[in-house]
């Protein structure tokens, strides 16, 4: 089984979000970048397929050279090879087109992306990629088993869980539950050393179109001060929620 894991290189979850250039660009100054958490769950699941079912695991990102440490980390975690498509993408559709061009040459059986990135939050790339390739698609995936060509999976829905079945090839939007937090693989020294020998190929971008562009960023308006209510006067809280906030 040939597996591709799509990784997005995103600001660490503790990052303070600021903008520069008249609020048209994200301020990378002092920001740590990580593998998008949903992608890391997906990568770990892929490594299990590699260890238990002999799958080959490739990782890919569409981004500039600053994304390479994230790909190296994926190799240290256990991926067999990495690709970087050399383009700073403008929107999710552009990413999907780049990935689809790569996939058409490679014929992956299973493509795992994150349900959503924590920076752009588009929830676009995996679904668009599946549609461009004509593969089956399921997102919010929290369990995935594959025997031969047949897939059994479950996905989180609003207020519950749904079990589905389909055949490969498939694109999956991964999330927590696919593996647990404690299962995430922390690269060890050996992994890090091996990662240096593995191939990280930079490929030029293909022609692609964009459908949306960001003209400006903005931060939420500062919040008013908190109103404290004495623990012995809970009636006052109910009164405020009813008469002032009008939410109960």
């Amino acid at each position: 089984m040939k597996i591709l894991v799509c990784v997005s290189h995103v600001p660490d979850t503790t990052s303070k979000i600021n903008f520069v250039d008249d609020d048209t660009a994200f301020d990378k100054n002092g920001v740590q970048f990580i593998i998008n958490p949903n992608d890391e769950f997906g990568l770990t699941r892929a490594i299990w397929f590699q260890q238990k079912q002999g799958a080959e695991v490739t990782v890919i990102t569409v981004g500039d050279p600053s994304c390479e440490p994230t790909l190296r980390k994926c190799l240290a975690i256990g991926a067999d090879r990495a690709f970087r498509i050399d383009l700073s993408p403008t929107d999710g559709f552009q990413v999907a087109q780049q990935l689809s061009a790569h996939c058409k040459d490679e014929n992956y059986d299973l493509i795992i992306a994150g349900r959503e990135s924590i920076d752009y939050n588009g929830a676009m790339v995996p679904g668009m990629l599946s549609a461009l390739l004509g593969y089956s698609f399921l997102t919010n995936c929290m369990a995935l088993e594959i025997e031969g060509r047949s897939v059994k999976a479950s996905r989180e829905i609003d207020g519950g869980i749904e079990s589905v079945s389909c055949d490969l090839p498939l694109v999956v939007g991964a999330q927590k539950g696919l593996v647990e937090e404690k299962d995430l693989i922390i690269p060890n020294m050996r992994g890090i050393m091996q990662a240096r020998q593995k191939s990280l190929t930079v490929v030029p971008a293909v022609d692609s179109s964009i459908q949306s562009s960001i003209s400006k960023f903005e931060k939420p308006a500062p919040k008013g001060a908190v109103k404290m209510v004495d623990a012995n006067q809970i009636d006052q809280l109910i009164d405020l929620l009813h008469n002032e906030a009008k939410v109960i």
Partner: protein
Amino acid sequence: MSILIFTETENGKFKKSAFELASYGRAIADPLGVELMAVCFNIQDTSPLESYGVDRLIQISDPSLENFTAHQYAANMAEIAQTHDAKLVILSSSANAKYLAPLLAVSLSAGYASNVVGLPESIEPLRVKRSCFTNKAFNLSTLDNKVNIIGLSNNSYPVSENPKEMVVEQKKAILSETSFKVEKVEKASGQVSIADADIVVSGGRGLKGPENWHLIEDLASTLGAATACSKPVSDMGWRPHSEHVGQTGKPVASNLYIAIGVSGAIQHLAGINSSKVKVVINNDPEAPFFKAADYGVVGDAFEVVPELIKKLKAFKYNE
């Protein structure tokens, strides 16, 4: 030319988001003087939608679409959008809508903006404000395509009544061959889901253990609220994954969010920021969550919450 909304249903009835989308769609359709159309799948009583300004409802009824399947729904939506020359398609931000939208975008060659937080700032070209960086920021996006899709954030547009003469049209479903099958749907019945809830009551590690969750559940049922939790609480298995909210869990965009024994770590706040009113109950006056709260109570959850439940019941009784 028209505007098309995808109305969602739950147990054969329209969800609140359907009325939000209709109100929102109406507000865009009016100044443009175009028709507001809606699509619904497998619903018997379509009349509640008449109150919210829909001109034409396309009703698809087919037992094989009983369970939501994104590609089948997308194919039907795409065909309707093309037949009626829809320039704008509007969906909610539910899990199903987010599953469907990218598929629809590709088949319509449409631009797609998810997590849109209000009316467009301009229509030609379409410019919308959407949240990004998991609610830590917004971006203004321009979508200059023949067809565009908006995914509207839940609770970000008020429902407003605007009764119209609604034409209801039956349409036969188009069904494609596929290996994809929904085998089983397990839903906790009678519970409000976090995505649909107006009020969410959330518990953190401060509750000490799963045996104390009756406090959260009692408060939630008193308020008709959904229950949620912080990440460590679900990691330790005190509560199911589906309740984990925050940057790496579910987003919450409720009208009221009550956090009990949650410290207010940046990753937690990121996911609940877009809730309108936040109440924090914590025994540590220095808990960071108070800085992000609208109302705060410093106190022991084991004393404050039972008292709050008691007082709320009295309040509801008196109303």
